[in-house]
């Protein structure tokens, strides 16, 4: 099938889902069927595209020209392909989970919830496959707007206030910083199309101006949550857990760091950044965020907030790796988008299951929860170990590539950041697990038998699936590396080398 058509389909399927869902407003089963069918259909289309891209294809086309030089254009390259696959795969798991969660908690206004969710996914796909900065910006903004109702879903004062923070911060950064950065690029480079090797090389901007521009981009992409523009992410935790799981651990935040990597590779170009050191400032800022956010996470008692700060920290891994701007670091950044996505969604699923089955939200309440919900907590452990970066889980690869990428670019301090952060990850994640498994539940003695109360079946299924993915992707890393090597044109044998082999140097 024509690849251009596939891209259109990938956008149209969730959009059509969003249009159909309200029609089935009165029939919840039909409505959920529509969501699931849409999600599966989307995955098929994205997988077909993946086959094309792995075969070396670069499907690209212009849908329409908005203003001369300003096209609504799509171009599928390996990085966007990876992001598209992540979002569409996890959407299925999350849809199954949502059904369990929304029904289990008797949430009101479920139809608008599913509609906004489908629109958010459509715009995520749009971000992934965008062929130029304008298209990227368009879908980026739609993503912000479509997730606002999801954050404000509860409709109480707290939800409204936090949703206000959410939309204002994201809109403010994107309009005040990102839009001027894009227009500036347009005026300076004469184009805003993504191109291998970057488009700013010949624009004649000095190193200082490039630093300003790069900073505008990274902070303008507020979804990447580099401190100090991270406040929206903890605020967004007021949303129902499936939203936090898919959107605020995967789609929205990953859209942010994805945009940063994309701008780094296809707008600035690695060579230009290596020459001018324009991205060093951001590398330091991101490194600081990694540590600082982990420290804040240590002090959070609310489970979802702790996970949110952990996300802030993990996102900055990607930004830091992108800003280091060596080919191997870019591979690490892209890999971390994937690794963190499957790991963190598992953790959020666990948090939502605990809330649904036991109504617990604070870490200090979780004594003995592992005995009541052993499956959930085992999944939580797998996710946590993956985030920490232990084999045989997927999280280990990204830290590996970021590390050697940093050494490659003479930025050894970044390796120190990685190590400190790993220790902090252990400190804020593992106590939850040990508390759950080793402490007796409140009101019982150490030897008492505890009744099992797992979350509803759809939720358990979803959590099992993502935890398994953390293992499977560890083994399947070779395929992914082949895809990622295409981004930076690293020789295949180098990219194919697994850690442990002699893969240092170029």
């Amino acid at each position, binding site marked *: 099938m024509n690849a251009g058509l596939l891209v259109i389909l990938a956008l149209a399927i969730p959009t059509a889902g969003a249009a159909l869902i309200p029609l089935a407003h009165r029939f919840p089963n039909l409505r959920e069927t529509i969501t699931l069918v849409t999600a599966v259909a989307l995955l098929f289309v994205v997988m077909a595209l993946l086959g094309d891209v792995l075969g070396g294809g670069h499907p690209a086309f212009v849908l329409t020209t908005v*203003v001369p030089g300003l096209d609504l254009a799509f171009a599928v390259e390996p990085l966007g392909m990876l992001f598209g696959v992540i979002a569409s795969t996890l959407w299925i798991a999350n849809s199954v989970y949502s059904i369990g969660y929304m029904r289990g908690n008797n949430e009101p206004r479920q139809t608008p919830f599913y509609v906004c969710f489908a629109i958010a996914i459509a715009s995520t796909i749009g971000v992934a496959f965008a062929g130029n900065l304008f298209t990227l910006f368009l879908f980026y903004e739609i993503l912000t707007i479509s997730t606002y109702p999801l954050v*404000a879903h509860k409709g109480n004062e707290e939800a409204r206030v936090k949703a*206000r923070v959410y939309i204002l911060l994201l809109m403010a950064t994107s309009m005040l910083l990102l839009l001027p950065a894009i*227009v500036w690029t347009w005026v300076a480079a004469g184009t805003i199309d993504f191109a291998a090797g970057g488009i700013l090389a010949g624009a004649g901007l000095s190193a200082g101006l490039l630093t300003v521009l790069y900073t505008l981009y990274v902070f303008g992409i507020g979804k990447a949550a580099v401190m100090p523009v991270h406040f929206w992410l903890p605020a967004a935790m007021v949303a129902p857990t499936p939203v936090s799981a898919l959107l605020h651990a995967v789609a929205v935040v990953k859209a942010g760091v994805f945009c940063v990597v994309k701008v780094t590779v296809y707008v600035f170009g690695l060579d230009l950044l290596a020459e001018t050191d324009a991205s060093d400032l951001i590398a330091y800022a991101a490194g600081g965020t990694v540590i600082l956010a982990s420290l804040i996470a240590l002090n959070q008692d609310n489970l979802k907030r702790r996970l949110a700060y952990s996300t802030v920290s993990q996102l900055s891994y990607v930004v830091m790796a992108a800003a280091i701007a060596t080919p191997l670091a870019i591979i690490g950044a892209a890999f971390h988008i994937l690794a963190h996505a499957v790991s963190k969604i598992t953790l959020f699923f666990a948090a939502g299951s605990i809330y649904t089955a036991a109504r617990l939200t604070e870490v200090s309440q979780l004594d003995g929860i592992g005995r009541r919900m052993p499956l959930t907590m085992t999944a939580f452990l797998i996710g946590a170990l993956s985030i920490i970066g232990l084999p045989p889980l997927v999280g280990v690869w990204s830290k590996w590539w970021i590390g050697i990428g940093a050494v490659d670019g003479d930025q050894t301090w970044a390796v120190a950041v990685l190590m400190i952060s790993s220790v902090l990850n252990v400190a804020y994640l593992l106590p939850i697990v040990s508390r759950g498994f080793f402490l007796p539940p409140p009101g019982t003695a150490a030897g008492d038998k505890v009744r099992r109360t797992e979350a509803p079946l759809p939720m358990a299924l979803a959590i099992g699936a993502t935890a398994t993915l953390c293992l499977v992707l560890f083994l399947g890393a070779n395929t992914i590396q082949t895809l990622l090597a295409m981004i930076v044109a690293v020789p295949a044998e180098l990219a194919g080398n697994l850690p442990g082999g002699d893969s240092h140097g170029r």
Partner: protein
Amino acid sequence: MIGENLPALQVILPLFGAIIAALVRRGDIAWLVTLVTGVATLMVAFALLVKVLAGGPISYEIGDWVPPIGIEYRVDVINAYVLVLVSVIAAVILPYARTSIALEIREERRAWFYTMYLLCLCGLTGITITGDAFNAFVFLEVSSLSTYTMIALGRDRRALIAAYQYLIMGTIGATFYVIGVGLLLVMTGTLNLVDLSTRLVEVESTRTVSAALAFIVVGISLKLALFPLHVWLPNAYAYAPSVATVFLAATATKVAVYLLLRFLFSVFGAHFAFGQLVLTPMLLLLSVAAMFGASIVAAFQNNLKRMLAYSSVAQIGYVTLGIALATATGLTGGIVHLFNHAITKAALFLVLGIVFYCAATVRVEDLAGLGRRLPVTMAGFVVAGLSLIGVPGTAGFISKWYLVAAALEKGWWWLAVLVVASSLIAVIYVGRVVEVLWFRAPTETVAAVRDPPTVMVATAWLMVAATVYFGIDTNLTAGVASLAADSLLQGPQ
């Protein structure tokens, strides 16, 4: 035969329609007359645009008097564009008008409303099409007088005060304009715009000509509600009948902007207005003041119509900003914003008309939870609101893009920052309303609202769809605007 007389028909059709509407005295028949006239006017406007795009400017001699002695109607790209804008809005909102007017105006006054509507349309097309400075004054007054009457037909007694205040301010503005034209007449002995532009070159160093420019700019600025000459606008928009608000917000100020463009660029010429006189800093300052001042005031309004009215003042600031930049990109941004803001504001006021129809109030606190009661209608408000903010994918973004690009082209990065910062205030005032409409539990008033008539919702959504369409396909808007900007910048021909 008809083809040759299109320029005259553009003005005469609504004029005769107005007379017939006044004679029939019955609201429904007057509406029908208005509808037929409106559609015919629209067709004429389209025909003119097509003709101009194909064959260049058209000159039409009224009564076969040869210009510059006789009055000339002159159509080029820019006023053909404005004519289409005005007549599209006038025609599209008519199906909606019937239901809305039936609710808001007593039967014996309805025919008068339609008469005034057509007279106003006649005045606006007249200002746009004429090539004669004094003739423009006459049409300006035709449109203004009918506007005052339309506003005074509002249900609220405050509409009378609003109309009276507007009458005083509007007349002062028109008189300032006519003083300026008088000074030009004294200096050059002609009123024909093309003729004026050639004869002005010899005398442009005199103080009289500078004074004439000042009078004309101030006079027109009053009509287009340039900050701080906008005080008449919020009350006029808030208390006029819903349909009148839609029509005025979308067209009246836009035509005034056209007239300003015509004088600054075609008559005086950019080199004079922006080169020898210090118009750029002054216009820039006032535009930025409007963008921020009026937006901030809008954020504090409880009456939604007033909120949108203040937002209009702010949006006019974007248009004048584009004019002040006086570059091809900036001018394109300003002109395209004329169109984009017209359809955006029309969509928003159309939705408010529906809200008023259903809930009999437009105060924010009374409308909590309305989004859940009327999801389709209020979704229209959200989409059009996004266009007001300038979110990509909507018409509002296109204008903002051009303005930011124009500022950066000049190296004025601070201005680019100001443009995007002011649209953030729009996020606040639109967001505030959206939050109340959708995320608060419905009040008793809202629970009891009636269903909106389909025709009203359809009209509003037509306009909403246009705001999205013209955010994606800009051949008709930015394309024509850039042609118009080029021809304006070439100056007097």
